């Protein structure tokens, strides 16, 4: 039996607002990446895509600011006055900011669109990738396995494509949605296997997870499968992809943050 006098810092440090951020950053990065691809292939066909992506970035930045306990200390300026290349959040701050700049330049048709689209492809890739990196960098949180380095960009792109399929029904996003759904499905199915092949901490975390919340994984897999199979109904595929992506990402972020150390590890 373990008991404590005083309280270790084992409580959840991220809350529901952080889960919303993980959704919004996926929409921001994914739509910006799709905008970049369209801009590289057909710069004249961007229409409102750039502004839509910018809205998601603004929403995400606002959510990050509003949920931060430091929001009224304005210390976030240090993100841009520091050099911290090992920090995922530092990369994310620069990725979001540069993506916003490129989207404004594309939206206002200032300068060479293909060049800005190329830059946007780079910066939006960072935005898609950094949430997974921010999780996987923590050896102390066994559920945040290295597989999330691939799962989060794939599911992030899937979420964005789902929204694009809804907002632009006749566009080319639907086939890409099937591919992203298949990738997300495969990575989600691999996730428990990756955990099972980990160390003692990871296996203990997996056992705890299956004991209480294993159905989240099953739900995510089924939703990704439905998104992949619903080719004839892009709206349904989009709904399944959106639900599956949100469920899996939220669960991994929320449940993965809990401490095992407090239980004796």
């Amino acid at each position, binding site marked *: *039996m*373990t*008991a*404590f*006098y*005083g*309280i*270790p*810092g*084992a*409580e959840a*440090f*991220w809350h529901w607002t952080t889960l919303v951020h993980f959704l919004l950053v996926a929409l921001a990065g994914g739509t910006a990446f799709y905008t970049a691809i369209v801009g590289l292939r057909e710069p004249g066909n961007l229409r409102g895509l750039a502004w839509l992506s910018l809205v998601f970035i603004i929403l995400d930045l606002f959510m990050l600011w509003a949920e*931060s*306990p*430091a*929001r*009224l*200390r304005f*210390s*976030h300026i*240090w*993100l841009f*006055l*520091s050099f*911290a290349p*090992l*920090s*995922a*959040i*530092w990369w*994310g*701050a620069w990725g979001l900011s540069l993506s916003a700049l490129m989207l404004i330049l594309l939206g206002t048709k200032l300068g060479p669109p293909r060049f800005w689209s190329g830059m946007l492809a780079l910066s939006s890739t960072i935005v898609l990738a950094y949430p997974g990196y*921010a*999780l996987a*960098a*923590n*050896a*102390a*949180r066994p559920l945040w396995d290295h597989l999330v380095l691939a799962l989060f960009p794939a599911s992030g792109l899937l979420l964005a494509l789902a929204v694009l399929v809804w907002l632009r029904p006749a566009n080319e996003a639907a086939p890409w949605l099937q591919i992203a759904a298949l990738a997300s499905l495969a990575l989600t199915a691999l996730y428990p296997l990756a955990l099972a092949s980990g*160390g003692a901490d990871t296996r203990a975390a997996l056992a705890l997870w299956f004991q209480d919340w294993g159905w989240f994984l099953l739900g995510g897999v089924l939703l990704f499968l439905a998104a992949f199979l619903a080719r004839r109904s892009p709206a349904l595929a989009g709904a399944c992809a959106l639900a599956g992506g949100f469920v899996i990402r939220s669960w991994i972020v929320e449940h993965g*943050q809990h*401490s095992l*150390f*407090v*239980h*004796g*590890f």
Partner: protein
Amino acid sequence: MARYAMLIDLAACVGCAACAAACVLENEAPPGHNRLWIRQRELGSFPNVIVEYRPEQCLHCENPPCVPVCPTGASHKTTDGLVMVEVERCIACAACIAACPYDARFMNPAGYVDKCTFCEHRVKEGQDPACVETCPTGCRVFGDLDDPNSSLHEWLAKAERVDVLRPEMGTGPKLMYLNTPSKLGLRNPGSEVES
């Protein structure tokens, strides 16, 4: 430059929590949060049952995983080997809390990450940290690992065994535990008494 470290002789710790109380008074930890706490474990099986008291706090690691993940440089390691948080730079993103394998950090309601500093403000004045000064059994000692005359070396030489928390993490903790009562080491959840 120094390489500050702390040793806790668990065989001498009686779990009175005077260190935890002194820490709260010295550092004004906000209600509901502690920079230092005591873990009490019951180990073994009847009739060979022991109770182990283990004070825990920031270990001021040689390779602190909380430092590289900080996006603003707020979490940093001083030239004296202390792991600190520069409040003015902290954006409260909690990346360092996620990275800490020891649950040593918490979010101060004032909007920054907080943790044990080994009472740096006292150490600068040549004093011991409050927890060391207060301990009624004298089970704690603080000093400079690079100073051959520090009592740390004497304690280490006399210790039956020296443990660190979660050595597999490769963090190189500078808070070490001496003479673990269970004689099994610190990480043996399987031997805990169920109740």
